[in-house]
């Protein structure tokens, strides 16, 4: 029996994980797959396609190609930043669409201002 299985929440982690934690791990997994994508691309092919300048000079160390050299801690950091970015984007888009949503037609207050 694993030590972590002493906790029923941990033994059923796929069901009990919080949305934030899930987003973080999913972002780390995306970064890991991107790193393997960088590993799978032959840099010579990039040169042949004439994309060398665009990818290496503009993207520099942050391009997907450079991710092949990233270690676990760097991938975790990138995953954290990605998760934070997605959260900010989600909050902003929710606020934006909330403002665009029309007031209920049958409502007394057409302008929903609450003091």
């Amino acid at each position: 029996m694993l030590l972590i299985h002493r906790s029923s929440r941990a033994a059923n982690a796929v069901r009990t994980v919080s949305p934030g934690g899930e987003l973080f791990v999913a972002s780390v997994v995306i970064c890991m797959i991107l790193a393997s994508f960088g590993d799978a691309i032959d840099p010579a092919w990039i040169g042949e396609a004439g994309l060398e300048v665009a990818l290496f000079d503009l993207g520099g160390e942050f391009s997907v190609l450079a991710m092949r050299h990233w270690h676990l801690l760097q991938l975790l950091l990138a995953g954290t930043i990605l998760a934070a970015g997605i959260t900010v984007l989600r909050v902003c888009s929710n606020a934006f669409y909330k403002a665009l949503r029309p007031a209920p037609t049958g409502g007394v207050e057409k302008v929903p201002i609450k003091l």
Partner: protein
Amino acid sequence: MEFELFSAAFLSALFAIILIDLVLAGDNALIIGLVARNLPKDTQGKVIFWGTFGAIAIRAAMAILVVYILAVPGFMLGGGLALVWIARKLLMPDPDAAISHLAKAPAATFAGAVRTIVIADAIMGVDNVLAIGGAAHGSVLLIVLGLAISVPIIVWGSQLVIKLVDRYPSVILLGGAVLAWTAYSMIVREPLLAAWFEAHTATKLVIAILIFSISLGPWYSERLAERMKPLVVLLPALLVWMLAFEVAASVWKVQVDYLLARDHGEYLLESLRWLGWLPPAVLFLWAREQLVQRIRRIARG
């Protein structure tokens, strides 16, 4: 492979070892308690000390042995495949986690108690040492450091670990992802396949997605709607199908690239590669539907 001390590679490997140690740790405290419960009070203290010492020693010896075993061609691939299964097992929901059968009977003597604790730890720790052997990239220093940090936490701070994973179950998911990542790095480091990967670099991405889709299957399967559940089987199966054609092309020296095909046979092979998976996929979906309906009928009456 030797790491420069405190470099990003060193700290990353150390973090991976500690995380793997924590999520795959066996419940030593429970086993010690079960084994020693019938012994006299004064012997119990000695059993706890020597049982813990023996468990740590056997774990360290096994981990160092694994580093040398993994250097043998073929074992890195085998170890990587085993890690995929371990990661999947870790994420499988376990509603009624059973107590280990390894230590159900209390020991009657001091030597018997220590022996049971050490054997139970050695059996429970096989997956653990395999994973940390893979994550250590052949560095014995990293394994010893990782064990020196994580074993005391597991033995004397087990309640702390339980509280941590109970509060943040995402640690388990992260552990599963790190195991899958370790499995991928072990498979692509396999010396027997190095030349093949050099010639087929694109297959590394297919292998990475295949490993993640199998290891993390229990996780995304929980989030999928019922009608989308077959994807958990179909996605890895499709990737294996594509990979099989790449392997076949190398083994039997056949042309599977559409742009380089020259005769009808090669065009036929190419069609089989891109469309041949459709009939088995449809057959699988039909058989699954029949099975689900049959189970529903049985449940109704």
